[in-house]
């Protein structure tokens, strides 16, 4: 692997890990506050799965540069995170949380199916592991999309409000990183334009079937993962609060 490819792959893995961690963190904010005991349990499962995937991606990066996953999550400044705005948004209401999770699962189902075939073994293995869970997630969040869209006037209104925020930001989740071109050329990553198209088509089809037309597709823009937004700063201040309390601590 050339130095260019390695550093591009490190950025790609970090971005994927950061997205999973921040999304899992947002989901976990519901633990203890869900609308139904069973749903409290369900969302806590999804949160654990996403954070578990972050562990997988940080681990795959670790194999390249030896970085410690906990240090990446708990000691890295907000400026160095590569998360997208889509996962950084506050948890919002139940419609926002479940629609975001559904859109994320849809993207992951598409991207992981392709990464599973990557010639870079650590990437392919992590993708295969994460994909199993994503298929179940889609069953769960797909079930919710239909109930939110076809439930009551209020659930539909809240869902459309959520999509107004989420749909334009969805592109930032799916868009290629500056270094992805190198990885596509090296055959490590799939063609990103095809992936983008497949993801948007799949998400739109499910939303429209639930009478939740998201409107026209957002214009492809840069991923903007290197911008530090207020939501990221706020989230990381909380996430890293205890870990930063005692710099001397050898173990938490």
């Amino acid at each position, binding site marked *: 692997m050339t130095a260019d490819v390695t550093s591009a792959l490190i950025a790609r893995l970090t971005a994927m890990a950061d997205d999973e961690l921040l999304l899992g963190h947002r989901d976990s904010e519901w633990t203890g506050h869900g609308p*139904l*005991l*069973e*749903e409290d*349990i*369900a969302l806590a*499962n999804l949160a*654990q*799965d996403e954070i*578990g995937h972050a562990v997988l991606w940080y681990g795959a990066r670790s194999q390249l540069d030896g970085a410690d996953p906990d240090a990446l999550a708990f000691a890295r400044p907000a400026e160095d995170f590569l998360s997208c705005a889509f996962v950084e948004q506050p948890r919002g209401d139940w419609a926002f949380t479940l629609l975001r999770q559904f859109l994320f699962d849809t993207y992951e189902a598409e991207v992981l199916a392709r990464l599973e075939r990557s010639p870079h073994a650590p990437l392919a293995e992590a993708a295969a*592991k994460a994909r*199993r*869970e*994503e*298929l*179940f997630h889609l*069953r*769960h969040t797909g*079930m919710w999309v239909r*109930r939110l869209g076809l439930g009551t006037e209020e659930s539909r209104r809240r869902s459309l409000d959520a999509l107004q925020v989420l749909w334009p930001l969805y592109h930032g989740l799916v868009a290629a990183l500056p270094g992805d071109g190198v990885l596509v050329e090296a055959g490590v990553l799939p063609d990103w334009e095809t992936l983008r198209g497949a993801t948007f088509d799949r998400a739109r089809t499910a939303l429209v079937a639930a009478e939740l037309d998201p409107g026209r597709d957002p214009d492809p823009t840069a991923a903007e993962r290197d911008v530090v937004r207020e939501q990221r700063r706020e989230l990381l201040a909380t996430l890293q609060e205890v870990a930063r309390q005692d710099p001397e601590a050898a173990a938490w």
Partner: protein
Amino acid sequence: MRWEVFKQDTPTKPHQAVGSVHGADAEHALLNARHVFGRRPAAVSMWVVRADRIYTRTAEELASEAQRTPIAAGQERTYHVFRKSSHRRSMTFVDHLVEVRASGPDAALQVALAGAGDEPGLAWWVVDAEDVHATEPEAQASWFEPAKDKTYKQQSQYGTVAPKRHEGAVG
């Protein structure tokens, strides 16, 4: 609405009643069942059945019923019969025993009782096969297998946790 949940731990074990979940409809209930009872291993299949559709009898009830309702002739349907057979400490209730064709749940129970012989059972549940909402066989890999990797919530992974002897208390 309440749905009873039946979990099968391995392909060679019977479905067992593990508890119930609330769910607005069958699809919701089945997913809730997976979330609640599948968050730790092991499972290969789950069924949910509306709690109010289950025909139940305990041994005491069977004994106190003056006489059995005569079996009405009628179209035969498929029933799943479940039985609890011991007072031993357990986290599950009735186990799937047999699938029978009968004209009604009581008839199905009588068939099962006749076949049970020496083990009359302590409690019985009879479920119309059409009331069973089951996970698909191909769901196993995505619904149940990944729980095995979540070792951080399995107490067996912690072994014996004990402090190293410490010199003196915190001053």
